[in-house]
């Protein structure tokens, strides 16, 4: 590459990084700034807003509800997806296309549309089973399906499931042992990925909780925002940091070594195309 071209390229790159870097970092910095403001313009910076978080019972309840939902959704996702995917891979390969389609369908159906159809179902559920906020876990599992499926699929594709299963069976293991003690430990990274992605999605979900009249973390932040902007922004920053840390952990453990299969539509990250986060 000629020197002239290389110089132009470098200038272009620096300019792009500076401009866009500023665009992305300024709002985040502004959030920090806002949440540490004193009472008047001249008052010193204070962490008062952050400390008030623990003293707002509604907020604390919402935080715990969201954390509980995140755990429930992850567990449910693992219970539902892992055995199914292993079994389909081993015994029902003709169903794998169907499963893939169903798992990627939530990306095409906007959360706002889904909730329009869920309202009667949840009405029935509230009257007949339970009206706890934890029933949201049923829907959240659907929302995390695309990301969990991808993560688990890449994990399964990287190991030779057939050989492992046959070897274990020939040594006398039953299917439970095969799945739990042979295959699952070999896809522990993929399972961790799937869980972290699920937690990130659940903590950021707003649409479905709001329209079904539950108060989860994001709904609580939104409600509080109308009353007390500083505290709500402090909580928003905290939840953002938490999700950021989770995803950074993911990026260290996460990049699977196996090649992603060619038809992958390139949608690896939560919140895409309508899943309740935006």
């Amino acid at each position, binding site marked *: 590459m000629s020197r002239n071209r290389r110089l132009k390229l470098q200038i272009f790159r620096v300019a792009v990084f500076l401009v866009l870097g500023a665009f992305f970092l300024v709002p985040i910095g*502004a959030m920090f700034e806002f949440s540490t403001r004193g009472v008047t313009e001249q008052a010193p910076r204070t962490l008062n807003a952050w400390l008030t978080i623990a003293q707002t019972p509604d907020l604390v309840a919402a935080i715990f509800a969201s954390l509980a939902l995140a755990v429930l959704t992850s567990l449910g996702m693992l219970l539902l997806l892992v055995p199914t995917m292993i079994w389909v891979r081993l015994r029902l390969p003709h169903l794998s296309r169907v499963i893939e389609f169903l798992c990627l369908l939530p990306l095409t159906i906007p959360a706002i549309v889904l909730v329009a159809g869920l309202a009667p179902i949840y009405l029935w559920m509230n009257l007949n089973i339970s009206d706890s906020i934890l029933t949201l876990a049923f829907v959240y599992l659907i929302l995390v399906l695309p990301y969990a499926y991808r993560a688990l699929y890449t994990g399964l594709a990287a190991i030779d499931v057939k050989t492992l299963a046959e070897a274990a069976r020939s040594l006398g293991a039953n299917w439970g042992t095969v799945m739990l003690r042979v295959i699952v430990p070999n896809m522990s990274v993929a399972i961790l990925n799937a869980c972290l992605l699920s937690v990130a999605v659940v903590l950021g979900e707003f649409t479905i909780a709001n329209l079904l009249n539950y108060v989860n973390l994001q709904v609580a932040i*939104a409600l509080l925002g109308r009353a007390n902007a500083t505290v709500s922004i402090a909580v928003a920053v905290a939840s953002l940091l938490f999700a950021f840390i989770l995803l950074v952990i993911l*990026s260290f453990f996460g990049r699977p070594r196996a090649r992603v299969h060619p038809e992958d539509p390139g949608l690896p990250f939560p919140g895409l195309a309508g899943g*309740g986060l935006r």
Partner: protein
Amino acid sequence: MRRPLGGGRRLATPQWIAAAPFFLYVGIFLLLPTAIVVGGAFVDSNGLSLSNFASMNQRFVINAFINSVVLSATSAIIGAVFGALLAYAVATGNPNGVFRRLVSSACGVLAQFGGVTLAFAFIATIGGAGFITLWLQQQGMNIYANGVWLYQLRGLVLVYTYFQIPLMVLVFLPALDGIRPQWREATESLGGGTWHYWRYIAGPLLAPAFFGGTLLLFANAFSAYATAAALINQGSIIASLLIANTLTSEVGLANPGIASALALVMVVLVAIVMVLYTVLQRRTSRWLQ
């Protein structure tokens, strides 16, 4: 003859039984709500009818959809252009460098940063009492002299680009990585310059990926609800807010039939866009993956 244990014995239950829980679950919580929406769109208080679609023929409904299309298209195009530039700046760097990994992770985080937290971030930045607003006022400029545009369509476009650009980077970067340096060398050995390279080689190859990314951004913005809901407290200027307000109106104007009809229109539009996106994605992968 004795049957061998374990492997030789026929299963008493068919093998697909093991996959049944999954299908049952997805059927109840994904397919059933979708069916309820599709079905509910064609039902009103008198039974099967198309009256829901007829009542969509009102000024405010049409405006909401037009606004949604304008918002999605604008934020998609802006996000696509700047996202492509950023992706190009990243792709031309060291592929294993720290910087590349940092930007990729940041884009991964920012693409999922939306909804309430994003809205509040922008309120904290250029809201009424925002950081930048106050700073500009100290310099003598009042950006809200003609009304607070952050809480209107223009503001939404600005806020949406915040997650559209990283999404474009995530989708476009793999395509850029697929460009081989040999193609540039071949162009130059045949006497072509930068213009020839982009016009005849890289441009046509990257075009499906670029337009596919734009479509994806469009679908993304069109389906978005949380960010707008957090910024706009009253009114339904875009389709998703309209659906939400017809679903759970505080003033008693809720009408699930109309909500279903609106939702059906939205899901059809998004589905069309996603199908086009998949077609373009296949074309991209022919050369660039």
